[in-house]
């Protein structure tokens, strides 16, 4: 057993897996999304040598009850290639000891040092209650419910928005929280973009960066619903709602500045971050679509 690998897996347990066990009564689609993502990190961690395969099997035993109750992974929360990997895990009692490990070489030298940072970015997103609420609502609300919330979101006062952002753990599931969650998701998308740009800049010749994006980026893809017609439409609309909320505030503080300055900048940056998210996180889905 290696001390550092044990430490890493124990911390991963504390941060990502143990909270899921505590939450295990809620087996809705979002719970399954979180669970499968965490299993995906475990799997990739073992594959790259970041976690110990024997210890991962011990953890897997502990999770078996939750895994059984979550059932087989399915879109839109989990796409290829992760769902295939998870199905493989389900078929074995010691899946990680029997799984393939990444060979020593260029790809491993590239991926292994990046793994803890990629996981950190994902941990932050996973622990953000407002972002989680937004993902939940945009995936799960039926049209009737969503339309009611849209009306509420249209009329949000920026002070309420600020309150939600200030106390995310106390935020109720309501319109202001969803809009605050959207803004938080944009920040997480920007953090992820920054990570993948940095990763690309240090990828030497011979590294399959596309495969890296498909496997590592694909783990968190489900947080930002850009693919399903309904959820993508909802996501796009949040941009308008953000502008509605910001406009009075900006007019009040910057009366001499044309509204279009903010609007154009906002649209441009959101489009760019969405485009990069698609490139880094959704390439596997886009390829198979």
């Amino acid at each position, binding site marked *: 057993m290696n001390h550092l690998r044990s430490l890493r897996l124990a911390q991963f347990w504390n941060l990502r897996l143990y909270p899921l066990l505590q939450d295990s009564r809620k087996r809705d689609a979002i719970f399954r999304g979180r669970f499968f993502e965490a299993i995906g990190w475990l799997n990739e961690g073992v594959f790259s040598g970041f976690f110990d395969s024997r210890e991962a099997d011990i953890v897997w035993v502990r999770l078996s009850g939750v895994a059984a109750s979550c059932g087989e992974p399915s879109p839109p929360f989990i796409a290829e290639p992760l769902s295939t990997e998870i199905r493989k895990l389900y078929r074995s009692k010691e899946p990680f000891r029997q799984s393939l490990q990444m060979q020593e070489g260029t790809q491993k030298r590239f991926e292994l040092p990046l793994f803890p940072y990629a996981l950190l970015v994902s941990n932050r997103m996973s622990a953000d209650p407002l972002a989680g609420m937004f993902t939940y609502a945009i995936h799960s609300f039926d049209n009737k419910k969503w339309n009611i919330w849209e009306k509420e979101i249209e009329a949000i006062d920026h002070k309420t928005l600020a309150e939600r952002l200030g106390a995310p753990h106390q935020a109720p599931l309501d319109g202001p929280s969803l809009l605050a969650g959207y803004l938080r998701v944009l920040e997480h998308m920007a953090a992820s973009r920054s990570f993948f740009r940095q990763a690309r800049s240090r990828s030497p010749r011979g590294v399959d960066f596309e495969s890296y994006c498909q496997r590592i980026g694909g783990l968190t893809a489900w947080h930002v619903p850009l693919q399903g017609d309904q959820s993508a439409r909802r996501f796009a609309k949040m941009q308008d709602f953000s502008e509605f909320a910001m406009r009075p505030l900006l007019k009040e503080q910057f009366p001499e*500045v044309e509204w279009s300055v903010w609007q154009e900048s906002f649209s441009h940056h959101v489009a760019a971050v969405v485009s990069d998210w698609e490139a880094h996180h959704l390439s596997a889905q886009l390829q198979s679509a």
Partner: protein
Amino acid sequence: VTASKQFDLEDFGHHYHYFEQFEGSFALLSSLETVETAIVFVHGFGGDALGTWDEFQMMVDDTDWISYFSGSDLFFFQYSSVWERIQSSTDRLLTFLDKVIFQPDISNFTVPIDVVRADEPVQADQVEAVNTISALPSERQYRQVFLVGHSEGGVVIRNGIKDKLSGNSPILKCQLVLFAPAIGGYAPAGFLGTLANWPFLGTILDAVLQAAPAYQDLQDNDLLKEIRRKTERKDREATKAKDKSKPALAAYIVWGRKDRVVKPKKYDQDSEGFEDRNHVGVCKPTASYFSPLTRLSERVRPK
């Protein structure tokens, strides 16, 4: 479990450790046994322990920088920057420094490992820590501590120093590197002040700030004035007494030339430099902007 040799697993320098007692804060701990330098990063208004320092964490172990930072532990402190008063955030920082840096409480560095080492099935509510391992390869006693702040983080650090001026606190021996500190006040008020420090929305807001140059009238408030007055006075006393034991009284400050959020207003004893960056970008190293790493490394390991 003693494990120093077992840390030598890969050829990259630091490993991550998350603090349970200080939610959101984390550290990049050196794998070396002898580490004499701690660098504590304190984010700004609306920022967080990751986003504010974006890419710092990745770059310190790059070939070009590893020799400067391999002998340092890096701590990324998280606090509720906007919604708590400065005094409350200061109290959190001082507690963090005491329990993690100055007189490390080992419980902040230990992690229970039963879950990965025992085969018996355990229910969620039965996970009791029996065996723990330390994230530190060896006991630490830092010879030099750097406090690195951005925006409001600079105010929180200086307020902490102000609160300890009359004693002999180890914080007075720390060295300060501040990026765009808000020690002269903020430009955008309230909610916009928060967004101005968010990596993504801050960049967008920058376009508005750029279009509103008249908005540069910053307001000093009483707290900021008090921190400055007391710190400068203490520094004058120390200078007069030829007392060089309190380096924390003076800061090395890096301002962004395109910063529209804070005014470049330093204390008398501070030294300063400028970078062609805006408020959110000034402290973030990138593949084409090494300055935050360079400026910090020059102080951590002077040539």
